[in-house]
Structures are given as C-alpha cells and as structure tokens.
C-alpha cells in the first residue's frame, strides 16, 4: 500500500514536471545569450545573464506598460468590487423571482463571446474619442468583471447570518449603516479574495486591451504579444519580458492558493 502511494506520487510529480517544462524553459531562455538560446540540441549549461531582463524593462520601456497595466487593473478593482459587493448584498438578502431571474441573467452575460462586445466598444470608443484612454479600458473591464464579482461576493454574503442584519436594524442602523459597519467587516476575507481574482482577470485581459489601447495606454499582454514574432534573435528579450509578466502572478498564487476553486468557479464550488 505504501509503495503504491509512492508510485502514485512519482507519477503525479512527473506529470507536474512535464506541465511546467514550457515555463521552466522560458525562464532558462530569459537568462541566456542568443547564442545559447538556440542551439541544437538545446543546452542546459550556459553562463547566465540578467542583461535582457534589464533591457526589456528599462531600455525597451516595458516599465511604462507595467504602470499602464497596474493603473487599469487597480482602478478596475476599486470600482468593480465595491459596486459588485453592494449588488451582491442586495441579491443575497432579497429573495424574489425577480432577483433570481436577475442573477441568472447576470450569469448568462458571462458566456457572451467577448468579441461581440469588443466591436461595439471599439466603434463607441472611436466615436466618443475615448480610444486609447484609461477610462474606456477601465469601464469595459469593470463591466466584464461585474458578473464574476457579484456571483463570487454573493457566495460569501449568503454565509453571513441574517441575524447580524436584524441585530443592526434593531440597534437603529439604516441599510447603508448596516452594510458599512456590520456586513463589510464580516465579509472582509471574501472581499480580499474577490479583489485578488478581479485583479488577476484585469491584469491578464488581452482582447479588450488589444482593441481599446494604443501607444499611451498599452498594457503588458499587448506589448509582449508584439515581441513574440518570428525573429528568433529576440527570444532572450521576449522571454525576459514574458517571465517578468508572470512573476506577479506567481506571487498571487501564494496568497490565493486556498481560494482557487471558489474564486475560479465564481463561488459555485466551495473548495
């Protein structure tokens, strides 16, 4: 029985390693000189250099794209999570056929092909002269993230006992005071988890950024996609960029690892 457990562990560890090969390979490439980056057969022994990490972030200006990415992602979360939490609170407390229908409608929005929204956004942005501004990108991401935020926050809010609301009501709080002074503190861990996942979604967003951002507001995913071209002499450089973009996400994993299931299924499956 024990040896079977060890075999099982080894098999799963092997699968894990295979699935990580592309990531590990990119990390290695990012520290290689081009001459080491494309050798046949591939080489594992080389003298590492951080030159390309420096080059892509400072000389090629990726730090400005990082700032764009952060401004957009953080603003999105700062708008999306508060209004989503308010809506989720109402939807967790009022149980009528109308609110149930609304919840399902919000869920249905999640399955929209994003391309269908990107087109009118693009046309509207060009008409309103909002193309390549933070505002249009943030508004688009807030809207896209609302279904996710509402459903995930609602899954945390239904776990908050209604006796808390009632007690606050008896103590003379109005709805707003109840929400701010009683409910929000009670559901703080849920807000943190929801914010982390919203941040991840906004940081990773590609299609809307590709369509709505230009020279002034370009985000990291769009910038790196332009470096992935056929030219293999750029490999070390774009690998350095790609690896750098991945780092904050690995940090995210450390904080969010216990909440992955709940976060990624919008609260539908509580891990």
């Amino acid at each position: 029985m024990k040896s079977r457990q060890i075999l099982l562990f080894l098999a799963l560890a092997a699968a894990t390693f295979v699935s990580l090969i592309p990531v590990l390979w990119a990390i290695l490439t990012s520290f290689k000189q081009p001459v080491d980056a494309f050798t046949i057969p591939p080489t594992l022994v080389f003298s590492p250099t951080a030159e390309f990490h420096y080059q892509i972030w400072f000389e090629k200006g990726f730090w400005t794209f990082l700032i764009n990415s952060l401004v957009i992602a953080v603003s999105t979360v700062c708008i999306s999570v508060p209004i989503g939490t308010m809506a989720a609170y109402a939807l967790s407390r009022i149980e009528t056929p109308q609110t149930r229908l609304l919840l399902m409608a919000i869920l249905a929005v999640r399955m929209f092909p994003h391309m269908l929204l990107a087109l009118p956004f693009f046309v509207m942005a060009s008409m309103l002269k909002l193309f390549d501004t933070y505002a249009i990108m943030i508004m688009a991401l807030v809207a896209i993230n609302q279904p996710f935020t509402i459903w995930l926050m609602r899954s945390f809010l239904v776990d908050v006992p209604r006796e808390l609301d009632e007690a606050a009501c008896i103590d003379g709080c109005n709805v707003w005071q109840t929400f701010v002074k009683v409910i929000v503190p009670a559901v703080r861990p849920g807000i943190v988890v929801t914010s982390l996942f919203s941040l991840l979604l906004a940081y990773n967003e590609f299609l809307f950024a590709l369509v709505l951002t230009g020279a002034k507001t370009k985000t990291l995913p769009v910038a790196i996609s332009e470096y992935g071209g056929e030219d293999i002499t750029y490999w070390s450089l774009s690998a350095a960029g790609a690896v750098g973009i991945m780092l904050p996400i690995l940090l995210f994993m450390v904080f969010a690892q216990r909440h992955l299931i709940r976060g990624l299924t919008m609260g539908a499956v509580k891990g």
Partner: protein
Amino acid sequence: MNTHRGLVWFLAPSLLVLVAMLVYPLGYALYLSLFDYYLPSNAPKFIGLGNYLALLGEARFWGAVYNTFVIVVASVALEFCLGLVLAVGLYKLRFGAHGLMVVLFVPHIITPVVAALFLRWIFVGQWGLIDATFWPLGIFTPDWLGDPIWAKVTVVLADAWKATPFMMLVLYAGLQSLDQSLIEAATVDGANGRQLLFRVVLPLMRPIILFVVSIRIMDAFRFFDTIYVLTGGGPGTATETLTLYTYSVGFSRLEVGKASALGVVTLLIVLGLISAFVSFLYRRERGRF
C-alpha cells in the same frame, strides 16, 4: 422585511454599469449587424439580414464553424479526461496533494498571451524545444505550426495545457464532497475500481461535471489569446475559429457590420450548445440534476 427597506437601491450602481457597458453595446452590435458598414467610410447602409445571408453562403465562415467545433470538442474532451485522471490521482494520494495541485495550477493562471509565447518556444519549427531535442536524435517531429492538421493539434494541446488544471481542480473538489458512505457501500458490495468510478462516482458527480464542462465550452468558444499568438489562425485559415475570423473581419478589414453579425451567430451557437447539453444531461435522469 423591514431590514430590506432601501436595499433595492444597492443594485443601482452595478446595474447602471451593466446596462451602459454590456446591454447597450450588445444591442448596438445587434443593430450594427443589420448594416453594411465599413468603419472609415462612416456611411452605414441598412441591408437587413444581408450580412447573415452573406455569411451562410461563405466557405470561410463554414470553415471557421468547422474549426471551432473541432477545436472546442477535442480540447474539452481531452481536458476532461486528463483532468479526471489527475483529480482521481490527487484524491487517492495521501501526502503532498495540495502542493502538487498548486504547482500544477500555474499554467492555468499565467497570462494567456505569455502562456502562448511559452508554448511557441516549445513548438516552433527547428529551434523550438521539441524539434531541437529530437532532430539530433534522428527523430523527425511533425511541423507543429506549419501543417494544417498538426496546427489544429497544437492549438488543442495548448488549450489543454492551460485548461486541464481548472478541470482537475473542480473535479477534485467534487470528489472530496462525495458521500463516503455510498463509496463504502459499493466497495462492500464488491464493486471493483472501474465499476466504482463509472457506476458510482461519476453519476454522483453529474452536477459538477455538467457545471465544469459547460463553463469550459463557453470559454473554449471565446478562446482567442492563445490562437492569436500561437498560429494567428494559420497556416492559411487552418486554425481560424469564429472568434479569430470575427477579429479579422472587424478589426483588420473594419467591416464592423459583418463582424457584428458573426459575433451574434457565435453567441447563438454557444447558447444553443449549452442549453442542448444541459437538457441532454438533465433529461437522462430527471430530478438528479
């Protein structure tokens, strides 16, 4: 009921955003789909269902439909099988499962564009990790990105690499929430491992399987970032899905009317597929949904 006074207003900000940024644009897209509208010309011409009729008679459209179905079905099926194997493995493992799961999960949450680049450096001809490793050994690998059929395979593998961890995680959560007494009862009754899996565990997990497969089908239809970076729809149009075709019509050719019609068609297909899938599983065992 008194606690609810004024609570309805809590919905207002969120609904305002949803209406302004989702419902209105969707309506606008429906409206645009009725026009022959080349964006720079700024002179939309009403043609009714003309865009839709034109699409139905177009080989490239049907090619995109075909590619989308092949890629969605193949990748979701592959992800489900791999995800289930990994989930059962982790479920049976009595040590280190959490650590392995977190590491296995990395491909799923890294930025899709970055993930696609990582895979490009593996699959790209001659210099990619696979070719560079196997060619010196005298093993000639397929032309991963350049051959119309292998490019589809590569795209499916890429999607599987990114989405299998999600399947695994949800199925693992499903396994953990199973009623242990039912499994024990089946074991006592002499069920072997295979019977246990197919006759007891999987039927019990039907709701969660339904959930995760529906989510994946929806997402696979939106699958854009990875293909865009990995093959750009090529070679030719071999991996051009509906999403990529819409992108090239809308944003390269700027025919926003026709592109909107394509988007609407995609939405209808997704809605149809999901409801068919749900009702199929629901009808097979009414009440066990």
